[in-house]
């Protein structure tokens, strides 16, 4: 007979799941759990400075490895602070298991100290959630939570555990099997054959690849499909790196901040092969005018994504990798010379133009320079805003899971704790966190965690003393009425970093920029690289929110623009 408290049961079940690191913060309602965790020899606790930080660290680990990660928080404010990180995981389909303390069962519903309806509050932002009512239930709930988080389309699962359940002693015969992902449903062979026919008949196909392809490990199969049939491939923000973004067939990122040629090629395609994507408005623009002449094949593991936003001519429920691998032998080898020539002309005539910079540093050049100083496979986290889009536009992502970014929820404050999580999962390898001053200030307390853990995180702060993307939209769409988006108080981030015990380097001195960068990146442990940029530098091109992707503002290449015939007239048959 095995005899354990509920708290010990949780910790041992986590060990049996293979969990080795748990970020979190203790508090009144999860102290029994922390007491049990303190005796674990296999799980290391990482003390975050805010529960949202703990949630994003778990996400960083999960995004970097693909494995389900865990975080802890106490009841009440601990749980509410975690909610943003959980919602973020939901929108980007990231497998995490959040375990929160709750007031004792006898006090639930009495408005007890630090009581909040964590179960009710987390329903809309989790894939599934549990309120555990007895310690015995943990033997079913914990493996189930891991199974649900990792199965099909992954997502966050929350387990709320009242304090009396943590202290309750139970006896049981044996441990349950660890929870593992259910096998994905088999891809329908007839659907695959139809898809292959559509691809073989298509004159101007484009592959449209998203986070689902990264998650399923479909990158390699997609690259082979693209190469075999000469299919230009565009990626969503979440899909960047699925195939190398500087692959000759890559069209890089599509949508609101795509290069002009990318959106133009999509406008001209006659077949859109969408895999692991959800037709997000930032990618499609006005959806009725997205790929107007194309038939659509849509592959997704989540059947509710098929026909949700755009009706597919062929919807295939299944794992992206399995589907693409099944397609490969049935798709004919093809040169598609006309289409390749057309896309080549678009690329030459409408390339991504470096962001015009009036300040000391060009953001695009900074991103490029840093990528050249790092290994090709180095992990890159971003926060949310202009810097995120500049990184998405020009960083040469080379592999899936290289970019960790908050795509769906767009959470400022994501970057630093996610980067710490990635560094915890892959100790030793440097992780770069591109951030902005607005984003960094939203979770800057985690610099203390980075210092404490000696995380090899290089924070590259593009500082324009403003909420840059808001500033840009006010400039472009609100008559340049800048309001609430510029910071009057200019934070001295060098001193702030120093206060956290994190070395800081200033790139504000033009003559020593490169050496400062090299020095910072070669250092072991965390550091902050402060890069002042001009508030007037915009992310271009830009599709206005709600407009069709063909209506791009800015980012034009004036020199070659006029030498090319109107692209619509030159679309090959």
């Amino acid at each position, binding site marked *: 007979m095995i005899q354990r408290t509920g708290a010990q049961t949780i910790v041992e079940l986590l060990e049996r799941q293979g969990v080795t690191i748990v970020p979190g913060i203790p508090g009144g309602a999860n102290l029994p759990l922390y007491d049990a965790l303190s005796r674990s020899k296999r799980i290391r606790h990482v003390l975050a400075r805010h529960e949202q930080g703990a949630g994003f660290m778990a996400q960083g680990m999960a995004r970097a490895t693909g494995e389900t990660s865990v975080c802890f928080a106490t009841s009440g404010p601990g749980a509410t602070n975690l909610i943003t990180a959980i919602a973020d995981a939901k929108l980007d389909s990231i497998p995490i298991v959040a375990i929160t303390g709750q007031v004792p069962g006898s006090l639930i519903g009495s408005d007890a100290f630090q009581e909040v309806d964590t179960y*009710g509050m987390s*329903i809309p932002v989790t894939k599934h959630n549990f*309120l555990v009512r007895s310690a015995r239930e943990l033997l079913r709930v914990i493996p189930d939570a891991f199974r649900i988080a990792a199965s099909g389309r992954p997502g966050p699962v929350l387990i709320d555990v009242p304090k009396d359940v943590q202290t309750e002693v139970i006896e049981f015969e044996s441990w349950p099997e660890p929870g593992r992902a259910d096998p994905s449903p088999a891809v329908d062979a007839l659907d695959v054959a139809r898809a292959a026919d559509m691809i073989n008949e298509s004159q101007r196909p484009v592959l449209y690849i998203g986070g689902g392809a990264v998650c399923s490990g479909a990158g390699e199969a997609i690259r082979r499909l693209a190469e075999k049939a000469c299919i230009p491939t565009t990626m969503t923000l979440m899909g960047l790196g699925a195939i190398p973004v500087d692959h000759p067939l890559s069209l890089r990122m599509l949508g609101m901040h795509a290069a002009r040629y990318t959106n133009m090629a999509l406008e001209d395609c006659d077949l859109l092969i969408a895999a692991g994507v959800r037709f997000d408005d930032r990618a499609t623009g006005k959806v009725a005018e997205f790929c107007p002449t194309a038939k659509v094949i849509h592959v997704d593991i989540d059947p509710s994504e098929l026909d949700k936003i755009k009706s597919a001519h062929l919807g295939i429920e299944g794992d992206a990798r399995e589907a693409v691998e099944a397609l490969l032998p049935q798709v004919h080898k093809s040169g598609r010379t006309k289409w390749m020539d057309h896309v080549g002309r678009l690329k030459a005539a409408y390339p991504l133009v470096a962001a015009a910079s009036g300040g000391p540093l060009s953001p695009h050049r900074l991103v490029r320079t840093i990528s050249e100083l790092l290994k090709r496979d180095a992990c890159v986290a971003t926060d949310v805003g202009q810097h995120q889009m500049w990184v998405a536009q020009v960083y040469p992502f080379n592999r899936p899971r290289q970019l960790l970014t908050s795509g769906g929820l767009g959470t400022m404050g994501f970057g630093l704790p996610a980067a710490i999580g990635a560094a915890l999962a892959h100790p030793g390898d440097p992780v770069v966190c591109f951030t902005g001053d607005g984003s960094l200030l939203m979770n800057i307390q985690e610099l203390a965690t980075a210092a404490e853990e000696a995380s090899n995180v290089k924070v590259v702060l593009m500082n324009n003393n403003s909420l840059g993307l808001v500033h840009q939209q006010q400039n472009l769409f609100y008559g340049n009425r800048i309001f609430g988006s510029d910071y009057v108080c200019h934070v001295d981030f060098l001193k702030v970093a120093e206060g956290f015990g994190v070395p800081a380097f200033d790139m504000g001195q033009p003559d020593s920029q490169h050496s400062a960068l090299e020095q910072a990146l070669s250092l072991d442990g965390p550091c902050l690289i402060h890069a002042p940029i001009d508030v007037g530098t915009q992310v271009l091109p830009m599709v206005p929110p709600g407009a069709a992707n063909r209506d791009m503002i800015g980012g034009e290449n004036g020199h070659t623009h006029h030498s090319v015939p109107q692209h619509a007239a030159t679309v090959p048959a």
Partner: protein
Amino acid sequence: MNAIQKNRCQCATLELTVHNHPGVMSHVCGMFSRRAFNVEGILCMPANGGDRSSIWLKVRANGRLEQMIKQLTKLEDVVEVCRHDADHEVFLRLEDFFRV
């Protein structure tokens, strides 16, 4: 239900078999409000000796019905979703209780 009533409410009746525990109704209702689906009527009773419940929903049979059924099917606690026509008797018999 006669033809005129049918035209007035283009409805469908959904029969859900769900795990019976506190919170299942929140999951189902939460999904409806979160995705802005309308529910015209709802009934819930334990079934199968208490380990399952049946939830009956009267919903609008518009273009979003398929998506609604897919989202319901996705809920972890929903075991089965069965679609019936709007004139299923489960709601008809209740009309007497809803007269003001």
